[in-house]
């Protein structure tokens, strides 16, 4: 109930253009009532697109993080501390994300933030978080430069000490897909389309580099926008390029119409995308012709992971109004990692909560050192803030639904 009213509030705030002002006011009200039991309230932020095209993914993130918080409270994971999830809707907009980040920083009760989904949004939030040493663990933003710096291909440097992520990067997703297309599918000529956003461009860049290295040909490289639904000019170019597959870097609201229009134009070639395409709505929109399309998703399929059994059971028992979707597992683990870091930071100080800034620095240190077995597998961060796991799964649409994964593996390079 509480999340829903926040989500509504977030949407309304978006309308007034006062996301920051309205949002923070409503939360301080909650702190007052929430801390009535004498326990210390520690807040964990969750920023994701809770409305708009990516809502299905965003709500999965929100409820999964909520589950981690609820379980921690029920099990008294940190004695004397009640955790509270503060969800904010970024509408997949970098500027709203930045405002949300500022609101989290301004609230001294916030110990860490889970999210966002979009790499471009993550990019705009990080300098705000970093200045305040506020930990942000993204469970969905996969652009490599977020952790490894803008020159990650040549010279990796940690961009933001406060930023972590527990999902494999596009540096792996793109090459993994290239490898699969060239070796497994035996396709050597590909057209690429991206949506001009950080995530989509990054995906296509890493895909193309690996594909060329293998000896494949990028017959055509096109850029569209994230809200394009009309691909007619792209499609006529794809047609004359002779490409046998279209690799799409972007999210499903624009990726699905591309598939639909490709097939309607008589091009019976598959579209392959990243995790941004892997959503049931993709199939609904693209229609029956989307059978045979592919998408990669970082990590092994949750349903197939023994470590995720508990998470899935608890999630279903909680009857959340939306499925956990593809980022549920990582969002649950991200929230869990922040809870553990808060615990470690408090333990260091003998259970007392240090004042504002000092506390956040300690949580940041603890986050870097965190190590536990999460729903998606072992979670521990390297010197850039990335998780160790490099597993990716290739999904395919069969009979009008995403299959259970045609191939799962680590990308060796």
């Amino acid at each position, binding site marked *: 109930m509480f999340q829903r009213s926040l989500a*509504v509030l977030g*949407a*309304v705030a*978006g*309308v007034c253009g006062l996301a920051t002002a309205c949002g923070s006011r409503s939360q301080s009200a909650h702190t007052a009532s929430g801390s009535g039991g004498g326990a210390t309230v520690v807040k964990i932020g969750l920023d994701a697109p*809770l*409305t*708009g*095209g*990516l*809502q*299905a993914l965003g709500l999965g993130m929100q409820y999964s993080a909520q589950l981690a918080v609820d379980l921690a409270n029920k099990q008294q994971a940190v004695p004397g501390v009640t955790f509270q999830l503060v969800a904010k809707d970024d509408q997949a907009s970098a500027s709203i994300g930045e405002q949300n980040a500022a609101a989290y920083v301004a609230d001294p009760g916030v110990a860490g933030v889970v999210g966002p989904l979009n790499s471009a949004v993550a990019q705009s939030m990080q300098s705000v978080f970093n200045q305040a040493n506020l930990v942000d663990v993204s469970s969905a933003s996969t652009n490599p430069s977020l952790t490894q710096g803008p020159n990650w291909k040549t010279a990796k440097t940690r961009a933001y000490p406060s930023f972590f992520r527990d999902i494999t990067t596009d540096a792996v997703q793109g090459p993994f897909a290239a490898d699969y297309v060239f070796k497994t599918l035996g396709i050597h000529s590909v057209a690429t*389309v991206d949506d*001009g956003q950080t995530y989509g461009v990054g995906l296509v860049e890493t895909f193309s580099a690996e594909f060329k290295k293998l000896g494949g040909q990028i017959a*055509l*490289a*096109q*850029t*569209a*926008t994230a*809200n*394009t*639904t*009309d*691909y*007619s*000019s*792209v499609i*006529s*170019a794809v*047609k*004359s390029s002779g490409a046998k597959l279209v690799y799409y870097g972007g999210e499903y*609201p624009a990726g*699905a*119409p591309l598939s*639909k*229009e490709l097939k*309607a*134009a*008589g091009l019976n070639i598959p579209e392959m995308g990243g995790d941004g395409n892997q959503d049931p*709505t993709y199939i*609904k*929109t*693209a*229609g029956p012709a989307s059978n045979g399309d592919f998408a990669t998703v970082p990590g092994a399929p949750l349903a197939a992971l023994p470590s995720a059994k508990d998470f899935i059971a608890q999630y279903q028992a909680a009857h959340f109004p939306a499925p956990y979707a593809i980022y549920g597992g990582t969002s649950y683990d991200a929230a869990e990692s922040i809870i553990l870091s808060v615990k470690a930071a408090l333990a260091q100080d003998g259970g007392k909560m240090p004042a504002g800034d000092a506390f956040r620095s300690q949580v940041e240190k603890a986050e870097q050192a965190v190590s536990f077995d999460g729903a998606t597998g072992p979670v521990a961060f390297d010197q850039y803030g990335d998780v160790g796991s490099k597993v990716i799964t290739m999904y395919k649409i069969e009979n009008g639904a995403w299959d259970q994964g045609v191939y799962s593996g680590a990308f060796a390079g």
Partner: protein
Amino acid sequence: MSVTVLLQLVENGLVLGAMYGLIAVGYTMVYGTIQLINFAHGEIFMLGGFGALTVYAWIPGVAHLPLFAALPLMLLGGVVVAVAAAVGAERLAYRPLRTAPRLAPLITAIGLSLALQQVVSLWYRLPGGGNAKAPVAFPSFGGKAFDLGGVLVQRADLFTVIAAAVCMAGLAWFVARTRSGRAMQATAQDPDTARLMGIDPDRMIVVAFAVGAALAAVAALTQGLRYGQISFDMGFVAGLKAFTAAVLGGIGNVRGAMLGGIVLGLAEELSSGILAHFRDTAQYGQAWADVWAFVLLILVLLLRPQGLLGERVADRA
């Protein structure tokens, strides 16, 4: 670049332009009668789409009809919803501000546009509980495209062009041949004198909003059929393009709106399609389509500030 590819781009441009034109008529008619840029018109278009989808998804049996049989019902639903919304907006939001400074109705229109988006996003429901916060699937024609010597004409394209032609012919007949149509023209040309003829300006304004909304609903149906989805925020870009088309054709001029739409559609598809075709310019293709559209607008306005078919703007003091 082959002739077939070029012709395909022309076909795409004509279809896209026909859709822009259908929406642009609403901007131009309302502007013509009360000099208001109805920024919420894009959302009226969007509501038309949801009205049509509602008939398809909620009325038992419609989804099981062959699409061509369901279309008239969906169209009716779309038109009813769009017209009701537009007329309601006029009555409740714009009419009370008729004598207020120009900025007041303009800001109201922008606010209304955001509000309508949020209303659909928050409260629209599909059978089975799905909502409209993300794009929702729209029925589309099965079956193959028509192949005219290599140029593909999608079934939805054909529907779009025929619908636009019928609507424009109907509109031309209405404006030029009916008593109400002439009264509307009169109100646009000289509102005070029109009142002296016994014409109720309020009624003409309602007619302008209603006719514009009905055509926008037709456009929304074609949008849904072509792309297989509609979304609560689709009115923004479509509205901006259609507004551009209306200005391009000469705002206030109904034939100009259609011409502006088609010129804009062709310019967008041809510029982006040709650029997309060559390796060196591919990056300036689809992603830059909107840029080329606005470059065209600026060029036309530099050479003909009143738009392609527009009259002198300072016609009335």
